[in-house]
């Protein structure tokens, strides 16, 4: 019995002492911080496991609030719900409000587009682009080394044997990372319910474009003539679709029917057959 009493005494005293000290210290040594940090920290699991790569939950909370480059989903033990909550608090969640999907604006496959030279070197579009704008005669087309594929955070892109990337609509989140890494600006984000798409990026004059690639947009304007809603304009020898009009007004697009090079096409969900998924840049000979 005596032991039991001693236990209780020791425990209560310990509790009281630490309670008072902590509560006091909390007031005395308070340091002003961004209240948002505390809100975020509150959401975090406080396992202090360091799995996020920061020194504990507080450090991560600070980083995610103050540094725009720190992702909200780094907390490993917290997983989904915590990531969501942190994202909400910091306003970092939003993976695009308007649903969109990456679109490869080039049909210059190995067969279609002419090569200018044989490239030997680092297998990366941006690196190849530094050598006279890449190995293709067309200065605007996809180089096919898969820089976008390698940089897609969601594995939504694969390189097809024909040297063009394939976008998996299931996986693409429309984050736009590929858009930023493509040195040729071939990739653009397309509204998810777009009806037609222009699969060319060439700003060359028609004759030149045609010489370089059999699938190029020649800027001939046939599609423009065939669009009954004035949703297409020709800009720098390239057809440009105004998707606001196109999606809202057109039910039965016919603009692409007359295109001589099939540079403008109706968007079909599985437009590209999934080729062998091997990372083949077919037009590249090492």
């Amino acid at each position, binding site marked *: 019995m005596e032991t039991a009493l001693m236990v209780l005494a020791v425990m209560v005293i310990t509790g009281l002492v630490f309670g008072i000290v902590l509560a006091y210290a909390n007031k005395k040594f308070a340091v002003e911080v961004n209240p948002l940090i*505390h809100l975020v920290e509150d959401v975090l699991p406080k396992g202090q496991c360091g799995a996020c790569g920061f020194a504990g939950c*507080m450090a991560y909370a600070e980083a995610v609030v103050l540094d725009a480059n720190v992702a909200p989903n780094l907390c490993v033990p917290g997983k989904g719900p915590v990531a969501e909550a942190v994202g909400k608090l910091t306003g970092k969640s939003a993976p695009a409000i308007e649903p969109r999907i990456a679109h490869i604006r080039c049909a210059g496959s190995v067969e279609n587009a002419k090569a200018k030279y044989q490239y030997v070197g680092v297998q990366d579009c941006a690196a190849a682009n530094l050598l006279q704008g890449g190995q293709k005669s067309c200065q605007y087309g996809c180089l096919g080394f898969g820089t976008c594929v390698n940089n897609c955070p969601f594995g939504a892109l694969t390189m097809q044997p024909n040297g063009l990337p394939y976008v998996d609509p299931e996986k693409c989140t429309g984050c736009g990372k590929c858009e930023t890494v493509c040195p040729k600006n071939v990739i653009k984000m397309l509204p998810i319910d777009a009806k037609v798409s222009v699969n060319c990026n060439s700003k060359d004059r028609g004759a030149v474009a045609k010489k370089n690639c059999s699938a190029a947009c020649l800027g001939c304007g046939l599609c423009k003539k065939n669009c009954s809603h004035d949703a297409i304009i020709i800009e720098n020898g390239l057809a440009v679709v105004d998707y606001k009009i196109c999606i809202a007004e057109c039910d039965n697009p016919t603009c692409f029917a007359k295109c001589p090079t099939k540079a403008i096409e109706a968007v079909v969900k599985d437009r590209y057959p999934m080729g062998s998924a091997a990372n083949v840049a077919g037009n590249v000979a090492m």
Partner: protein
Amino acid sequence: MSDGQHNESNDSIFKIAINLAMACFVSGAIIAGVNFVTADAAAQKAEELKNDAMKALAQEADTFTPVDGKEGWFVAEKDGQMIAYIVPAVSKGYGGSINFLVAVTSDGTVIDYDITSHNETPGLGDKFNQEPFKSQLRGKKAENLKVVKDPSDKEHIQAMTGATISSNAAAEGVKKAVEEVVQLMGGK
């Protein structure tokens, strides 16, 4: 982990402290309760274990009585007849200290020993707690507790292959125990 200022509660320091103290109180109560239940059982188990260990060393004995003034020492008796001293000993091995419990007869002969804790390389150095090394030490006296590397020498202890340091440490630990017993007997 401290939730800081955003949560401008007006709780007084005392109130917070009481909160923690309450938790501690409950905790203390539970632990005390469990301890109350298990303490006796634990003590009993510990006693049993110790006796078992000693029994393994001096198998014929039936009672073990502590020796006054010698901490950890026991006298193993059978029908009131002393057959051995159970002596704790320590020596330094390859990976740190090695603790022994050695049963020694009053004339300084090793009956058996057990290594209670060690940090030797598993599978190599820790063979000293197993046969055949163990039986080499049984029945030896202090002067024979010496490690040699000559296979023909049966008087002394043969080192374990690849673990000379551990062999030495074992022999030395047991020897220490024997010498202490001899000293005690001689002192009488």
